[in-house]
């Protein structure tokens, strides 16, 4: 039972302890740098602004953030301005657009018109990042030539973004410096004219430093011509009735001069294939494009144009459906609107139309890929009776052909499904029409007709020239812009700046019903009421989102909201 517990120890115990203690203390005290970590997955301020490649990469990001028509965000950010005007309808379930076309946009909901509150679709993004860039350039030591050019590009991008902004809201806060966390963030709105003055000054300054052209790898940067085209459109908008209620003639003169300056660069000309112009084969490969937004489907970060626009029969999403109202505005080859052309047959509606109709619209019976479009019911492959993706079928019987490349399948994501067309922000065709409009307002109807007819005589279009004068000529001008620039984000703004939207955008939205008798195969065409539309006199300016006002009580709401 005896249990002898004895402890044996010797002085080694102490030695071990001391060894461990001193080692540990050494370890812990010598490793001050344990906490001295730096991120090794991102670049520091110092690394970026002293390096030309990184500085340029930052500027590229600013370009990337400019909203464009093929935005790959929510479905309804794709070509939203076509859907919010009398050009297209987006699917019925996307009732968000309905709220706007019915005049119900509000501070709570303004759909794609909300280009303010961010973060995914806002002109504040390029503006604030350009502000940061320009601020950092003050102390940058990179090559002066590069610095001047990039600075000019960023000023032009910022000016363009402000121009888009005021086209939505009227005056916005003019912010030209970057903020830091401790700043007072509350800034009041400047007036439309203050911002417009800033835009023009900035563009004039950057035009001095910008090159006429870049190599192909830099397509998409702002050129001298692009800055001039931005200025031309901005001045045209500033001269228009919405922003020039006194109809100051000097504003029209400035607009005309700015457009003429672009024309006189002799850098651009109309491309002779209207259909190809908007596809991947066109774009910057033509001399018509002044500034656009190239894409690259191969990297799968871009928009899937064919995927989104193809009819359901090809597994496309048929995102936007042209309205009958638009179809009715395509002239016949005689240069007359169908409703006044005695040769027009309502039961054979798609013959002898403006060639741009065939380049823009897919209609029932239109040859497309290996068959014709079948939007008839019952049973049409591209109708709501189709066996594929029936819910994606057009609700108006029409699909968009502009922009798409027929050789793509449209049926999958990625480069097999879709091509990479450039979204064109500015092209020569528009500049000609801008000039025509300004000259009309200045009373020079001959020049106006001349420039409209340049558009109409494009090879492959060759529509009869316009000969009208006075109000009739104005109507031809409006008509020409509607057709030539269709889906390119002009109609939405044009009708507003002309202050005709309360009438034009309050028209009922119509669609075509194509019925095919299963027995005889005979088709009957019926134009049907589709949707109501309403444009209130306060809708000329977009509502400022409520959260913006909640954040900043200095921001005043636009009247009527």
């Amino acid at each position: 039972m005896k249990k002898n517990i004895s402890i044996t120890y010797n002085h080694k115990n102490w030695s071990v302890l001391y060894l461990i203690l001193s080692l540990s203390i050494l370890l812990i005290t010598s490793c001050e740098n344990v906490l001295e970590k730096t991120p090794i997955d991102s670049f520091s301020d110092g690394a970026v602004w002293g390096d030309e490649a990184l500085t340029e990469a930052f500027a590229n990001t600013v370009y990337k953030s400019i909203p464009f028509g093929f935005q790959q965000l929510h479905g309804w950010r794709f070509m939203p301005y076509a859907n919010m005007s009398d050009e297209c309808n987006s699917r019925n379930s996307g009732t968000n657009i309905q709220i706007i076309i019915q005049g119900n946009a509000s501070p709570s909901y303004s759909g794609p018109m909300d280009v303010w509150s961010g973060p995914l679709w806002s002109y504040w993004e390029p503006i604030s990042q350009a502000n940061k860039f320009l601020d950092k350039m003050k102390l940058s030591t990179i090559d002066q030539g590069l610095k001047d050019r990039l600075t000019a590009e960023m000023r032009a991008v910022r000016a363009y973004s402000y121009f888009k902004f005021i086209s939505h809201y009227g005056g916005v806060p003019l912010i030209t410096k970057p903020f830091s966390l401790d700043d007072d963030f509350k800034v009041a709105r400047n007036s439309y004219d203050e911002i417009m003055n800033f835009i023009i000054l900035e563009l004039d300054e950057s035009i001095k430093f910008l090159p006429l052209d870049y190599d192909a790898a830099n397509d998409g940067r702002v050129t001298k011509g692009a800055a001039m085209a931005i200025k031309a459109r901005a001045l045209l908008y500033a001269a228009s009735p919405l922003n020039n209620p006194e109809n100051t003639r000097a504003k029209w003169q400035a607009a005309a001069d700015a457009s003429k300056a672009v024309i006189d660069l002799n850098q651009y000309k109309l491309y002779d294939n209207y259909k190809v112009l908007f596809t991947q084969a066109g774009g910057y490969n033509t001399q018509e494009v002044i500034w656009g937004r190239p894409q690259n489907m191969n990297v799968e970060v871009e928009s899937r144009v064919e995927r989104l626009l193809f009819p359901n029969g090809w597994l496309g999403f048929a995102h936007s459906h042209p309205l009958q109202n638009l179809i009715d505005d395509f002239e016949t080859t005689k240069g007359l609107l169908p409703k006044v052309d005695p040769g027009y047959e309502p039961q054979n509606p798609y013959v002898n139309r403006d060639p741009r109709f065939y380049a823009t619209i897919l209609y029932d019976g239109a040859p497309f890929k290996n068959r014709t479009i079948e939007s008839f019911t019952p049973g049409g492959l591209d109708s709501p009776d189709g066996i594929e993706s029936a819910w994606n079928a057009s609700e108006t019987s029409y699909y968009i052909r502009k922009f798409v490349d027929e050789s793509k399948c449209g049926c999958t994501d990625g480069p097999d499904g879709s091509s990479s067309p450039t979204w064109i922000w500015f092209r020569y065709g528009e500049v000609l029409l801008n000039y025509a409009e300004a000259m009309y307002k200045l009373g020079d109807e001959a020049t106006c007709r001349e420039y409209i007819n340049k558009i109409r005589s494009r090879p492959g279009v060759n529509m009869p020239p316009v000969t009208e004068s006075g109000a009739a000529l104005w109507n031809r001008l409006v008509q020409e812009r509607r057709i030539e620039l269709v889906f390119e984000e002009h109609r939405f703004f044009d009708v507003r700046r002309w202050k005709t939207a309360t009438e034009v955008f309050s028209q009922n939205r119509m669609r075509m019903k194509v019925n095919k008798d299963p027995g005889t195969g005979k088709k009957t065409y019926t134009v049907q009421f589709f949707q109501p539309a309403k444009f209130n006199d306060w809708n000329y300016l977009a509502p400022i989102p409520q959260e913006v006002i909640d954040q900043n009580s200095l921001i005043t709401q636009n009247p009527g909201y």
Partner: protein
Amino acid sequence: MLSKLIRIMKLTGFLIFVALVQATASVYSQTTLLSLNMKNSSLKEVFREIEKQSEFQLSSAVEAAQQQGRKITGKVTDQTGASLPGVSVVVKGTTTGVITDGDGNYSLSGIPANATLQFSFVGMKMQEIAVGNKTTVNLVLAEETIGLEEVVAIGYGTQRKATVTGSVASTDDEMVKRSPTASLSNSLSGLLPGLTAINRSGEPGQNISEIYIRGQSTTGDTNPLVVVDGIPDETGAWQRINQNEIEQVSILKDASAAIYGARAANGVILITTKRGGISKPTFNYTYNQGFTQPTRLPEMANSWEFADYVNQYRETMQNLPPMYSKEQIQIMKDGTDQLNYPNADWIGTIFKDVSTQSMQNLNIRGGTEKARYSMSGSYAHENSMVRNGIHEYSGYTMRSNIDVDITKNIKFGLDINGGMDDRIRPVLGNFGTEGSPLIPAFFPNGLPASLPGDIGENPAINLAGQGGYISDKIYRTSLKPSFSINIPQVKGLGVEGYFSFRNEFTENKNWRDTWTVYNYDSANDKYVKKKGGEVSKPDLEEIFNKRKDYLVHLRIKYDKKFGNHELTSFVAAEQAEGEYRSITAYRKDFLSPAIEELFAGSGENMVADGTRREWGRQNIFGRVTYNYKGKYLFETNLRYDGSYAFPKNKRWGFFPGFSIGWRLSEESFLDGLTHLDNLKLRASYGQMGNDQISPFQYLPMYNLSPIGSHLGGGTQAILKTGVAPNEKITWEVAENSNIGLDAALWEGGLGFTIDVFKQKRSNILTARSTEVPYYTGLVLPDENVGIIENKGFEVSLSHRSKASAGSDFSYSFSGNVSYAKNKIINISEPQDMPDYQKAEGSMIGAQLLYDAIGIFRTQAQVDSNPVFPGTVVGDLQYRDVNKDGIINAADRVRQNKGNIPEISFGFNTTLTYKRISLFANFTGQELAWTYIHKHARTTQNSLRDLLINRYVPGSMDSKYPIIPQEDGVGEGEVSGMPSTFWLQNAAFLRFKTLQIQYTMPENIISRLGLSSMMLFVNGNNLFTLTGMKWYDPEGTPVSDSAAGIGYSTGNFYPQTKIYNIGMNITF
């Protein structure tokens, strides 16, 4: 039980002596102060010195006394038959006593005839045996289950429950083991007061639970810190620890967590694994065979119900003629044309009636006084509940804990731990909630059909692997050598330390492929082949991650007991560093699906990517506990923490925790209450931090994206601005106060614990995104701006039948309820907001919802009420909160109805009759809500309840309004706007675990050469009572950032119901 851990620890002579003193101190130590000041002495000399000063007769020096009286010998074992060394055996009323040796044997001489022996050991019930005429007294000591002597793990140490002053809850291996699930977090549900575990999915390998300790106290990261054997686990590896390897799980809820400083604010979960004891090698093998079923599946509409919906949709929304005639709908009902008008049950086709899972565990424990070991290996396997489904999980773990006594004072340990997770899931994970009932999964001839849509989806074959798979393999290894040295020159002084080195390697493989489906062309009676796929040719992405870290821990401890004073203390330092690396490679356009390796893909447009991150932490911390007579208890935990994530001047933080306890039951004025075994009042206050944010937010940084620029249609790099530097960034601070009461009566007849707490979390790290205007262009960093208060209580009760000799029946019961309610006191938000929309004053996660007050039944109602623009008859009517005559965003009201329950509870009972025992555990939650959203479309089915009770024109009493057509909320559909209408009460009561166990009789097992054998059946999630209409109440919310709201569509891998049979043998 942790007591075993204590037991098997090789105690030095001094510690044994202390134990002996404790056992008899109740009568002795109050009057006599022993004063020992001996250096370089042997134990024998020490004992002699003690004897000189006291009346103690120590076994090593009692030869003279042993000449008189009787001699009694015996052996002390525990319930498993393992010998118990170190048990004190004292003759009652005297100071005569010995301790048992390494084999549990003792021998006492000179015992008077009528003597009673007291046997006591930490963690065991004390027993008294009247000697009578016996000369041999063998005894089995029972474990102390009510827990006064029970030992619980607290941060960096253990404490007797009796003297714990913090709010600490623990559960033991037996409890955890009874739940037949492969994820540890799922077994904890309902067992620990204050812990809420929510299981969001039953997917093999992903079926873990979200864990909250005392609800939420921050808008930031709410994950508690999990510490496994002293090492914080950041990767979730703890979820995969086999339940059989667990000794104890305890949670630190209040200031007791302050010892973990900057990472402790959300509470701490401590997991202790089993170690070896002094015994022969003991093999223990457990086999579990489980059978699984979905707990609940959504019920979708029948084809004729769906056809009716489609017809109405076309007529009212699309202005199109009906798709299906009355005759066709009749055919659907009659079921006479399965080809053209079937009634496809997608969900029924997809899910199997029953699937399987299995778990096996083998461990070997044993050791000698010099070395002890515990080694175990486990294998768990879960199969898919989908027919032919490829969801699968295999988990392997290996653990070896070895303790070696190099000398009496120097010990060394080595823990080696390895594991592998191997899981696979299909790329396309839809579960048939969208399949049209008019399209069968398989045509009558067996060909798979295509759901309408571009990719040709067919969940029945996609879940079976057509279309590709995602495979994850995680390999974990860790090595933890440790040492412990007692400094013999200074009693109570010791040094301990360990070093941990961990490696985690992850292989992720994401293979996508095409498949073949068919459309039926009824006009020509042909099956039209269609190529399905998210891609037109196969592609493959492989990601290799490597994470490694080390941690050094060094601790100096000093324990001293003098008279009525007992002091334990330690001071420690830790340092940890880690690194994460990742490599990604991608190729597409594989020519053939035959080989699923990168080389076989196209060389064009391939992608390579990689990154690296580093982190580091240092800290110094310590604890002092003191008690006077075991009656007045005091504890303080202090920690000085340094984190790499913050700027230099904000890098170090100090986190103190204090707690006091008063054991009223030890006071003489309560002596009269003889049934009161324990009554303790506790109070604590502490400060803790939460630093779980993106690091380096104090530096201006730019993030490079190699593919991004569109310029020239090329792929030039873009550089995005990182967060605006916040040079003031530092930790969130939690101030925790807790008052608690522990009571034990009637020797376990009743035990209860009540805790009331209040936590104030300040400096909450949040981005001021709702407050800072977007035009600033600032990418907002986290800033220390928020304040949140979280208050609540926990009550737990236990009751145990009185153990009486000869009784065949015993039972125990315990239950707990936890309540935690948080309130945002201050958070960055626009100050111009109306009060009813403010997050301030609401709970965390309270959503802004329209208040649905009904469904419009007539145009007159629409015309005469404020409406949301676009409202038509059949839409929801919302309350015009601000009375401005129109419904818009300003009418949304912040709803205090969150997804995380405010109340969670659990109760369990154990019934034992002879060899059979039954364990049942119920858990539940209250005050939890789920936002439900399920659209319907012309080719996509919806829930039967929604469709048959939808609004149809003219209906004056339909249960539901017009059914939204978009998934997600807030996209402008009037009835689909985020509103209270779609909020459902997610309260539930769930029969979480049932186990019935049978212990085989000895005569059978001894014939088999076993020392014990148990057979059991058990089950998990056996039934659920809930108000949730359509899905499992624990659900899987989908987050919708656009709408700022999380919602559930029912399209998730359902939670599992498990029936299990198992066997446990020991030999």
